[in-house]
Structures are given as C-alpha cells and as structure tokens.
C-alpha cells in the first residue's frame, strides 16, 4: 500500500515524512529559535513576523511548530514577504523545525 506523488508546487506533510527531500539536519544553526509548539496557525506566523528582525540580515530563524498548517504557511509567508524558506526538518517529538532566512 503506497502512494507516489509527482509534479506540482508542493508536497504534503505526509509525503515529506514518507520520503524526506530535505537533509535531516540543517546546514546552518539558527540564530534564533521560536517555540510555537502547540500553537495553532496563524499564531506561529505572527510570532515569526514579530521576531524575525531580532536576527541580523542573512541570519536564520527556526520556528518550531506542530500545527500541520504551519508546514504550508511558513514557506508561503516567506514567499509573500520575500524571505527565504531554508528547509523544514522533522522533530523527533512530532512537528517541524522550519528554518527561515531574513533577506532584508
């Protein structure tokens, strides 16, 4: 029983878990970690928007979140706000560490 996905803009959280395309470990340690575990969207995004300016331009912020909406919404926020979504890394306890680079 398996399911493959082909083409398209996005992978679902399940597809990401089934066949991770990101490296398991981030290449660059974050300058700031925001703990949004247990918080529902849009709160993780609001926390990110409030605090991203606490890192220097070019620095990385990690958002820890376990609301499935955050898996889609943090990268979408990056696209809308012209920041960079570096990658989303699974957490052992469930959820993701979603890394964002401040571009300006």
């Amino acid at each position, binding site marked *: 029983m398996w399911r493959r996905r*082909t083409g398209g803009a996005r992978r679902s959280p399940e597809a990401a878990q089934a066949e991770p395309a990101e490296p398991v470990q981030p290449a660059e340690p974050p300058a700031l970690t925001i703990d949004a575990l247990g918080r529902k969207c849009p709160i993780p995004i609001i926390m990110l928007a409030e605090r991203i300016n606490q890192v220097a331009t070019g620095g990385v912020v990690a958002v820890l979140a376990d609301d499935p909406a955050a898996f889609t919404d943090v990268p979408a926020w990056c696209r809308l706000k012209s920041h960079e979504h570096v990658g989303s890394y699974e957490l052992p306890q469930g959820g993701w560490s979603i890394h964002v680079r401040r571009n300006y």
Partner: protein
Amino acid sequence: MAYLDAASTEPLHPAARDALLAAIDAGWADPARLYGTARRAQMLLERARAEVAELIGARPDEVSFTSSGTQAVHLGVLGTLAGRRRAGTRLVAGAVEHSSVLHAGEVHERAGGEVEIVGVSRTGRVDAGAFAEAVARPGTALACLQTANHEVGTLQPVEEAARACREAGVPLLVDAAQSAGRLPVPEGWSVLTASAHKWGGPAGVGVLAVRKGVRWRSPLPEDERERRRVPGFENVPAIVAAAAALRARAEEAEAEGRRLSALVDRIRAEVPRLVPDVEVVGDPVLRLPHVVTFSCLYVEGEALLTELDKAGFAVSSGSSCTASTLRPSHVLEAMGVLTHGNVRVSLPRGASEDDIDRFLAVLPDIVRRIRSSLGVH
C-alpha cells in the same frame, strides 16, 4: 443576508421548484412497476434522463442518477477500477480533486491498489505533462480529473488529459460537479460525475454517466435500478427538478456567467488593494466564472467567517480551524499557498453588484479588527 457560498450549494432554481412541486404529485409511484401511475413516474424519469444526457453530451442509456455527487464519484471510481481489474490496479488523480475522489482512492489502496497523485501549480492547475506521463505508466486502470477546482475555481486541463488518456487507452473520469450548468461539459470523458444541488437542482441527486464501451462493474451489492449501476428507489420528483434546473441554467449560463465573472474580477482586483497582506489564490483567467478565494495573513479563518456572518455575508473557508478536521484544506496545501485566514466567495445566480459593494466595504475593517485582537497592527 448576502449568500455568497454557491460552490457549497446553489439555491434552488425557480424552474426546479416548479418542476419539483408538479412532480411530487405526478411522479411519486415506483417507476419499475406496470400500472398507470408507475408508468407516469417512469416517463418523467426517462424524460429527465434524456434531458440531462443531452445537456452533458451523453446518450440517455449512459446516464444514471445517484443520491449525491459524492456517491456518483464513489461509484464511478470504484466501479471503473473493478471493471478494469485485468488492465491493472493503478489509479491516477490530481492532487486537488474533491475529497470523494481521494477517499475512493484510499479504499482502493486498502484493497491493495496503487494511487498516483499528480501535483498542481501554485494556481492549483494540474501539471498536464506529469498527468500524461502518469496515465501512460503500465497498469493504469483509471485516471480522474475535475473540470474545475471547488475551492479556488481553477480550471483543469481536461482536454489535454483526455488526449493523453485516449493515447494510453485509459478511461478518464471527469468530475464536473463545480462546472455543470455553468460551463459546457468538456469532451473526452469516459465517466462523468456531477451534482444537481451545485447547479440549482435539489439536494439528493447526482449524475453518473458511463460511456458505452467503458468497462464498469458495481462495487455494491446487485440491484436492478438505474441500469444496475445505482442501488435503491429513484427520487423521481427531485430528478425531474434537477433536469429542469440544468436546462434553465444552460440557457442562462453564458450571460449570467459573464456577469458573475466581472464581479469576481472586481473582487480579485479590489481585495488586495483594500486589505494589506492578502493573497488572492487560484488562476486569474483559467477559472470558474463565480468563484474567488483569498487568504489574509495573520487572521484566523473562523474569526473571519464569524465576523462576515455577523455583517450579513455567508462565505466559506478552507482554513483548518473552520473545518471538522485539524488539517487545512488539501487543496491549499497542494498549491503551497497560505491556508489560514482563507475565504472563498462563490456567487450564486443573481448575486448583485450591491452585495459585492457591501462586501468590499465591510471586509477591510473586519480584517483590521481581527488582526488587532491578535496583537498585529
């Protein structure tokens, strides 16, 4: 109240109401029996079938009525997979199909079958090239593609998909639930499904059309109704009303579609101008005439629906906090667009310019208030 949720259900068309009331008196008997009242019910049923067949480009004997659009999809998917078992066990479907398609696919997977999901672009349009490659893979029993997406309105490349399916010898199920009665039914389908309450007919009537020559076997226990395709006593009055509504809509579709599409263009242009940090999603051109969807950053979808309801607007949302599940809409997720703060506005027949003016007048302040309650300024 301004009802702007036609993609969930379209209010009953006046022509359907008249037909329903007449058919409740004339068409209540069992159409399978052989006395006068039964023959009258059967005549009404067959006349409705012929009418629907003509309007969707089918032969009457290819058309069965189901108890819903969802049931039509379930029977269409599982019945074609059963009929094509010798050809293979692969099902190909777009990533943003209606949940009825994806849930039927899950049943197929649990029975040992394979499902390949073809991704979509940022606008929600299926990648036609990837779809063609997927259907050409050996062992493909069925491919499914909607005419248009139910959440964001984007039209799908049905013609290209039909060509690829024809070349690969794979039947194509086209789910026309969102477009039937609003846009012409595209050619090239092997199985077609639709839902009457989406076009202004009553609830409880779906359409399942299976092209002659397409192998199909019922996944349900044997029943002689509806050419052995759908079990249970037909709701003749509702079917008659559904056909009347489809006929009426087909006559109005072009002019009304143009009018609604202009209102949608207006919402697409004005919302990002009036409200900061909004993303309008879905294809701006290749879209249904009556659907527009946008997402507001830093806003909870549920709060937005509640406030719009208080202001007199009935709209819908694909945000997770508004659904019965904790997951956001699989459509928005597959597109990779914001899933929170999501609003779908879908215009019913007759939606007025005044309603849209008022909607655009109240929306900015509602969004501002919700954001400020979350500490966003």
